[in-house]
């Protein structure tokens, strides 16, 4: 394998890790309360703008942006849950999908209106330059984002499977009436899930902003990537999302490198259709 191919591969893995991180929030909410957040990509977009503003106003990097974005987005997630999602999730499908889709538009065009359509980006060396490891060049920003994203995704998985909060959340996912009888408050658990999922988009956004373009409409692209990741990983599965996210990051980067940058999204979206046709239960799901 040539060095540059390896370089693309590693870059793709790092990008894919961030995809996995924000997709894990989508899959958590979907698995837990059967709601798909169509504004999920726009949550990431907001976080990217937070990172942009943090740099612009204070000259801060991702370590300053991450906590701010996480807090802000978690708050947004919890507000969205209590003011919107909780009410529409029991209604007809139309209400449920329109609810979060409307939120997506509000956020997207709110940012469009405030910041304009222009693409922004953070300075290339905000995190550090580019490392040269045995001839493989890798941006420090990607390395940081990828590593942190993997760690956090695994941490989310462990939290859900190993802690009492996690098992309460899974109990609500399994059967919210039964959970209620056991003294768990489904409402609170679901609000926590929204806070958690949105908080993770905050971190993911602050990380990806260090090497990705920032625009009001980037949320749509990221949302579709999250859909592909979640479907490929099997809905509700964090580990599935991790594997699928990494895979998609690699496929995207490779197709960008081998066929051309404009085709990388086309390849990823086509994979989505293929998954729906041939493997709707996801890669890991049983038949």
């Amino acid at each position, binding site marked *: 394998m040539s060095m540059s191919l390896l370089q693309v591969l590693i870059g793709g893995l790092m990008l894919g890790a961030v995809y996995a991180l924000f997709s894990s929030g989508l899959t958590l909410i979907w698995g837990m309360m059967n709601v798909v957040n169509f504004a999920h990509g726009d949550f990431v977009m907001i976080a990217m703008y937070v990172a942009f503003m943090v740099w612009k106003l204070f000259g801060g990097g991702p370590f300053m942006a991450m906590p701010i974005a996480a807090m802000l987005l978690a708050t947004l997630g919890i507000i969205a849950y209590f003011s919107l999602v909780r009410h529409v999730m029991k209604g007809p499908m139309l209400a449920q999908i329109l609810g979060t889709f409307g*939120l997506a538009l509000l956020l997207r*065009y709110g940012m469009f209106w405030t910041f304009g359509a222009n693409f922004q980006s953070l300075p290339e060396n905000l995190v550090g330059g580019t490392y040269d490891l045995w001839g493989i060049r890798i941006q420090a920003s990607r390395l940081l984002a990828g590593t942190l994203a993997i760690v956090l995704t695994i941490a989310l998985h462990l939290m859900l499977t190993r802690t009492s909060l996690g098992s309460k959340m899974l109990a609500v996912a399994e059967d919210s009436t039964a959970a209620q009888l056991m003294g768990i408050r489904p409402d609170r658990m679901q609000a926590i899930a929204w806070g958690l999922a949105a908080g993770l988009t905050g971190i993911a956004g602050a990380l990806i902003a260090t090497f990705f373009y920032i625009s009001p409409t980037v949320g749509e692209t990221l949302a579709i990537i999250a859909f592909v990741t979640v479907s490929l990983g099997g809905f509700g599965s964090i580990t599935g999302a991790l594997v699928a996210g990494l895979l998609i990051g690699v496929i995207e980067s490779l197709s960008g490198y081998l066929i051309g940058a404009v085709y990388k999204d086309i390849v990823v979206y086509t994979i989505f259709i293929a998954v729906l046709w041939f493997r709707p239960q996801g890669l890991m799901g049983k038949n």
Partner: protein
Amino acid sequence: MKRSVWLLLILALVIVYPLLFTTPFLQRLGALVLLYAIAASAWNIVGGYAGQVSVGHVVFFGCGAYASMAFFTHFGWPPIAAVPVGMAASVGIAALIGVPTLRLSGHYFSMATIAVAELARLIVTNVEALGAAVGLSGPVMPRTVFDLSFTSALPYYYLFLAVLLVVLGLTYWMENSRIGFYLRAIKDNERAARSLGVQAGRYKLYAYMISAGLTSVAGTLYATMYGFIDPESGLGILTSVKILIMAALGGAGLLFGPLVGAAILVPLEEISNNLLGGKGAGLTFVVYGAIIMIIARFYPSGLLKLLLDRMAAAKPAPSDKQVRDVA
């Protein structure tokens, strides 16, 4: 007054509207209301009646629009002649999306509709024969009347009205036949419907394909009127949003819901664009987002339903005896 009298009165008003309001702006506005009402009524068949929320309906609109402009550009067809091509492509794409997803939970369907619309936009943006990022144009000067290229909006108004009546007629027929009953049953409770022998997946797919075909006609009409199509207007997500919000605001699953929605939102958008200029576009969609959230949260069945319920509450409901005699 009886329902049919009301309807005839409204129809008469719609017919004379462009003769009463003769300024080009108001005539064009009327034509646009009807055009979007066609697309939103078509969406209503799958989104409102079958309860499958397509958020990427622009892909069918784009099929119709691009088919007409492409066949004109490459073969010199009058734009309107490509209607069957656009419909066939739309029905094919509907099957591509619908066959795998309509047997899964409704979320997969909605996600797939967004992704395919975006996929189509990306592909078309990179295909020279379809005008790539620049787009395609129709006839500059009308060669024959069949090019349907007029400077006045009046002929378009009546053309769109005729098509809208056909779409509404078809919807009405569907609403009152077995498929309409089945779709409502599936929307209410798919498991129960299947226990009564309803082939849920198949009927949802039928609804989706019919909806797709009709939406593509709206796309063709759009392209004939504007004489131009590009990836943003023909395949951008904002057109999907417009189609869907008009149906949902007016009343998804109601025959005249989409028309009501279009009659409210199209003028609003035109006025806000005129007042605010380019900056208005962003703001319009902020407002659209807010409206969609409010509908979802408070009035998921739309304004027309709200109105009808108010009217029904005002007068006593007919007794079962009467209903039975009528039936």
